[in-house]
């Protein structure tokens, strides 16, 4: 695999360049206009793609390590849709409409969804329990988000359900990108520092405790940092599924199954997947929109099934 790594290096550069330059037509005007479009539209979109994708990959890897389950991810645990619910309730009913305040509401929603998952499924649930409990929380928070939007004071809010539940990076400003990515960066950095502890947790709680890890504290930290990072990004971009599942799965193959060591590669892969998915949405015919979540789900579902089938194979063999 390592032989291929140098060949893969130009890929991030090519993806970032494509994200900035495509479609080319709007950039062919006067230079000051091209600069405006690049700086005010394409750059925040790219930064959010990279940052949000990295957050999904990183938190997905951390949650998979924490639950000792390759199916745990921000969307399957309900953290993403919980964040959307928190941000919608905060902004439409509590007047917390600034990007930072929405991020805080999103983080609260994500944390509550994760805590609920622990309460329902336990600390290290088997795949079926995790899936069912996560699915129930995701469906419930998704439905409550739609309900909150339907009852929001603005009649337009309901039409934004798609944006909230499928995600979008379009037409975000640099200010919004900063509001999402600065808290996400801090939380992600703190989460990344727990990589070694998460590797030890994979050996079992007792072994980890004997190596100086406090499992309960580690659990709280992973939930808190994941919730802050996911919440801040969802508040600006909506919930995007499957990236947090796919990226860690690929990353763990690169790190030979070490869940903690997979954190940073998962972040990088998540960033690339989301930027690539966002590029694919730009292929929509004029005047039509392909939601970001539709692209990530289309890529992610086969990988999800592959992981699931692999687990079934292991369980039955």
């Amino acid at each position, binding site marked *: 695999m390592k032989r291929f790594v140098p060949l893969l290096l130009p890929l991030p550069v090519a993806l970032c360049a494509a994200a900035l330059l495509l479609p080319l037509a*709007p950039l062919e*005007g006067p230079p000051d*206009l091209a600069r*405006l*479009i690049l700086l*005010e*539209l394409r750059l925040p979109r790219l930064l959010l793609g990279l940052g949000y994708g990295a957050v999904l990959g990183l938190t997905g890897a951390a949650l998979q390590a924490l639950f000792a389950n390759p199916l745990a991810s921000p969307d399957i645990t309900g953290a993403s849709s919980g964040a959307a619910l928190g941000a919608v309730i905060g*902004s*439409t009913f509590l007047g917390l*409409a600034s990007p930072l305040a929405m991020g805080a509401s999103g983080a609260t929603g994500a944390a509550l969804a994760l805590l609920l998952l622990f309460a329902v499924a336990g600390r290290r649930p088997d795949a079926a329990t995790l899936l069912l409990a996560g699915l129930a929380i995701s469906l419930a928070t998704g439905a409550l988000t739609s309900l909150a939007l339907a009852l*929001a*004071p*603005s*009649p*337009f*809010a309901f039409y*934004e359900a798609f*944006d909230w539940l499928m995600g979008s990076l379009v*037409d*975000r*400003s*640099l*200010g*919004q990108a900063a509001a999402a990515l600065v808290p996400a960066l801090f939380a992600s950095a703190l989460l990344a520092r727990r990589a070694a502890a998460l590797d030890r947790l994979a050996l079992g709680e007792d072994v980890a405790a004997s190596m100086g890890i406090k499992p309960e504290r580690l659990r709280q930290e992973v939930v808190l940092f994941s919730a802050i990072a996911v919440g801040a990004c969802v508040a600006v971009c909506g919930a995007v599924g499957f990236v947090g599942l796919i990226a860690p799965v690929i990353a763990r193959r690169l790190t030979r199954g070490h869940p903690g060591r997979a954190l940073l590669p998962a972040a990088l892969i998540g960033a690339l997947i989301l930027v690539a998915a966002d590029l694919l949405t730009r292929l929509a015919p*004029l*005047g039509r929109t392909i939601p970001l979540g539709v692209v990530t789900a289309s890529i992610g579902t086969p990988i999800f099934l592959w992981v699931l089938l692999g687990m079934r194979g292991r369980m039955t063999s």
Partner: protein
Amino acid sequence: MPASALAQAADAALRVASLNLCTDELLLLLGQPQQIVSVSHLSHSPYETALWRVARGHRVNDGKLESAIALRPQLILTMGGAGGARQTLARRFGARLIELPYPNTPAEVVAQALQVAALLGRPSAALPYRRQLAQLEATRPQLEEGAFLGGGGLSLSPQALGASWLALAGFRQPALPNGRFSLETLAAKPPKWLIRSDYRAQQTSRGTAWLKHPLVTRLAPRTLTTDGRAWTCGGLPMLAEVARLRARRSAR
């Protein structure tokens, strides 16, 4: 008692309900207060119509026949609808249901006002609006490119009623894909004027957040704000709004 006074008394006794925001506007502007038995719930909202204070003096319905019929209206006004069943149902309750078609031009708006005023027995009530439209038509300003802009980049089709009102105000609405601005279009080819709707601008939504993007706010020098509530129906309140837009552009 003179015959005209008798006719006036009979008109005043007419009980009228409106099920639709657009017919609410017609009824509130053309009817006598004692004629109005009910208006739609939207009219009570300051977010939906500038006539909300007057509307709150009347009972509210939810836009369905059932919620108005108990008040025993003799005439029920609404807009759109396929006719048929609702009209038959209304007749069974002794009411006449008038389903006005959606108007396509300012002239059709005023023609509807004349029709409704006649139904209310007050034909002269619509005449000031006809005069106002004639005056605006006679003083049409030179057309300049100017596009309507709402939350999320929502604009108008050049064939829409709103575009006709814009033309009367002196603005030519450009054709846009799906009747919507993208931020890239707004950055690359901003129209000479932006007529920005303030409809529910204080309420949080992704659409209102879109209007705060730097690529939109940098166009403030060419932006004229308009009362977005009048554009929902594009009815009689648009006459005053057109005059206001003309004055605002002249002041720039």
